[in-house]
């Protein structure tokens, strides 16, 4: 942050002009938050004319223009990635900007930018590393870790360590799938840049190499059944979802995210219609708590055969990234008497559907892994059209926030990111069909919506979205 503070001070003192800033050394900003938005952010940073007028051409071999961190942190699904280019919009247009990204989840992002730390207490019943009376762990990514310039953006460290600061330095920006008002960090009030798009989610069921009849009958997730499954966990009989009284042997296991996740917040508020902080009973397939990261649910890397897959209930905990949910859903969950359901952002869901598990953003199946299956929500498959018309309601608003009381040049870069990201999202075209037939957009342009929300959550109302695209709090 030294360069930011230095530059900001110079601008504030009038020592240098903004035009002078535009030709100065790169300004680095740090962004965190929503994993559901990372693919769109990637596109907005690698497409000339969106966030950057010209994404940097000086990149590692095989990278898209603008991506300066080497593989494996160079794909649109990477949780840590670094971009560079000349800013497209605003008074800093032409300025070389490095955007260092650490996608840790919406709630974790809001907390990090606000300078607080989300914590949760885990007990031995779920996490064998915990003390008998429970152990309080900081959520993964608290504080977020960023790729370091000293390592050539290959390894990570805190902003404090990168900048050589004497105390903790908070990220500049965060993307969030929900507003700060309904988050677990409602204060201090962050700088609100606005809603950049509509972020959608979908339920899926996990892979089974030897599915039973009940598995085949689970095709739809009604809202009441989703709420019941989240609350009750595996003790809920599958007939809640199938409506078939024969489905009383199999239970429903929810594989989901932790309390740092905006995907989970949207699942609670907009899909299950439950209070956001209500406890859930989730599980994982081959999810463990490694000794080195004792409070972090981590996928073991083993997808099968079924006998090698363990059902490990995690209570109110879950994965800190959609990729963990994806990998558990690509595990072979056969023979456990449970139909496993997960909830994901559209990008992660696509990877689960394609069984992409050979590496970060990989494109092939791993040994014994299999395809996860899209499910309907209230009888409707996710699609751009269904969301735009109010027919499908499992979606939220993608927000951009900055630090409380943020000033230039960060505000100017924030405006540039908002403009560029909105430009990118507004160019997306409704592909038609639904998730089962055609790849849908992870974030949908607000102007294409024919319904809107008057508050941060709940069922949408008919009509165009009021401008400006942000809720008044």
């Amino acid at each position, binding site marked *: 942050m030294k360069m930011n503070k230095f530059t900001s001070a110079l601008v504030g003192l009038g020592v240098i002009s903004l035009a002078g800033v535009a030709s100065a050394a790169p300004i680095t900003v740090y962004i965190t938050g929503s994993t559901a938005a990372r693919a769109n952010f990637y596109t907005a940073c690698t497409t000339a004319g969106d966030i950057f007028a010209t994404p940097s051409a000086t990149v590692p071999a095989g990278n898209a223009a603008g991506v300066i961190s080497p593989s494996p942190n160079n794909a649109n699904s990477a949780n840590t990635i670094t971009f560079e280019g000349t800013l497209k919009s605003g008074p800093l247009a032409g300025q070389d900007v490095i955007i260092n990204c650490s996608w840790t989840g919406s709630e974790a992002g809001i907390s990090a930018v606000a300078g607080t730390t989300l914590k*949760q*207490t885990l*007990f*031995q*019943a*779920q996490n064998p590393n915990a003390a*008998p*009376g*429970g152990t309080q762990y900081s959520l993964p990514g608290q504080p977020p870790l960023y790729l370091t310039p000293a390592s050539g953006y290959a390894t990570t460290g805190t902003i404090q360590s990168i900048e050589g600061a004497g105390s903790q330095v908070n990220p500049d920006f965060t993307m969030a799938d929900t507003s700060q008002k*309904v988050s*677990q960090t409602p204060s201090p009030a962050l700088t609100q840049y606005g809603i950049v798009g509509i972020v959608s989610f979908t339920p899926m069921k996990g892979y089974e190499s030897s599915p039973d009849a009940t598995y085949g009958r689970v095709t739809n997730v009604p809202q009441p059944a989703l709420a019941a499954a989240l*609350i*009750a*966990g*595996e*003790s809920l009989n599958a007939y809640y979802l199938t409506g078939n009284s024969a489905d009383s042997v199999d*239970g429903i*296991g929810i594989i989901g995210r932790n309390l740092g996740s905006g995907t989970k917040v949207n699942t609670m*508020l907009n899909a299950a*219609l*439950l*209070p*956001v*902080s*209500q*406890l*859930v*009973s989730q*599980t994982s397939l081959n999810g463990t708590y490694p000794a080195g990261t004792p409070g972090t649910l981590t996928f073991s890397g083993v997808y099968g055969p079924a006998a090698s897959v363990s*059902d490990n*209930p995690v*209570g*109110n905990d879950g994965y800190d990234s959609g990729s963990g949910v994806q990998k558990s859903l690509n595990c072979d969950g056969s023979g456990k*008497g*449970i139909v496993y359901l997960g909830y994901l952002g559209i990008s992660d869901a696509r990877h689960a559907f394609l069984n992409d598990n050979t590496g970060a953003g990989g494109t092939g199946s791993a040994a014994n892994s299999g395809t996860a299956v899209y499910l309907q929500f209230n009888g409707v498959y996710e699609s751009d059209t269904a969301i735009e018309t109010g027919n499908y309601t499992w979606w939220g608003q993608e927000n951009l926030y900055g630090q409380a009381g943020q000033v230039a040049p960060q505000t100017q870069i924030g405006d540039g990111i908002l403009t560029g990201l909105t430009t990118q999202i507004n160019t997306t075209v409704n592909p038609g069909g639904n998730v089962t037939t055609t790849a849908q957009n992870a974030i949908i342009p607000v102007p294409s919506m024919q319904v809107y929300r008057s508050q941060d*959550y709940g069922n949408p109302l008919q009509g165009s979205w009021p401008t400006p695209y942000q809720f008044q709090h």
Partner: protein
Amino acid sequence: MKTHLYKAALLAALGVAGTTMAHAQAGPALGGGVLGLGFNDAAGPAAAQNDYVINLGSFINFTTTYSASWSISQSAFDSSFISQDTLWANNVAVGVVGGLQGPGGAIFITGSQPTITSASTVNNALSALGGVNTGNYSSSSGIPTDPWSSAVAASPTAPGNAANSVAALIDNPMSNLSNGSATLTLWDASITGTSRNPVLGSWTEVGTFSINANDGADTITFRGINAVPEPATYSLSALGGLLLLALRYRSSRKVA
């Protein structure tokens, strides 16, 4: 907090150490694995329709040999009830419930001995409870806030509005204060089995909560049914014994 400080000062003056006193905790939600104590006042006027919820800490602590004390925030209690309801001392209700969902967990609840035998039902109730916000707020707060009066019980005779409220699913843990005080019996049942087929154990008595919400008292104490006397009690007893011996010695010398 006043009582806490007073007791600490008293113990320090007596040179007694080792007595533990837990602090009430504030936070956005109770979360899993803890016991919550909630006050509400459905019998009072509209302005008194508030909840005040205190996190009592990990359920693991609550054994038959445990004893601890907590403070009631006088300002929170006053603003929620005393300044809103002249009859607060008998209108305000209080109860304790908590635990951890799933195998390895347990349910704790005050009141008469519960009869529920379904672990799944208990899990549902604990799910709602864990989302309850701590601190003081309106009893009618809605999503995304989760009030005690909805998730636990609206009053000693009415369940919460939530379909899976503790009172609707298990039993009503609330009792009215009597002249600002209440004594509540705590029961528990462990959860074993598997996540698919959880099993609820038998209900056993754990101990007693004593609540005194009167200004100047503001304390919550818990004493397990097998709790040994606190070191302070031993010390006071010893001090009393010494005083008696001294008085007897003086008395005997006068006689002599």
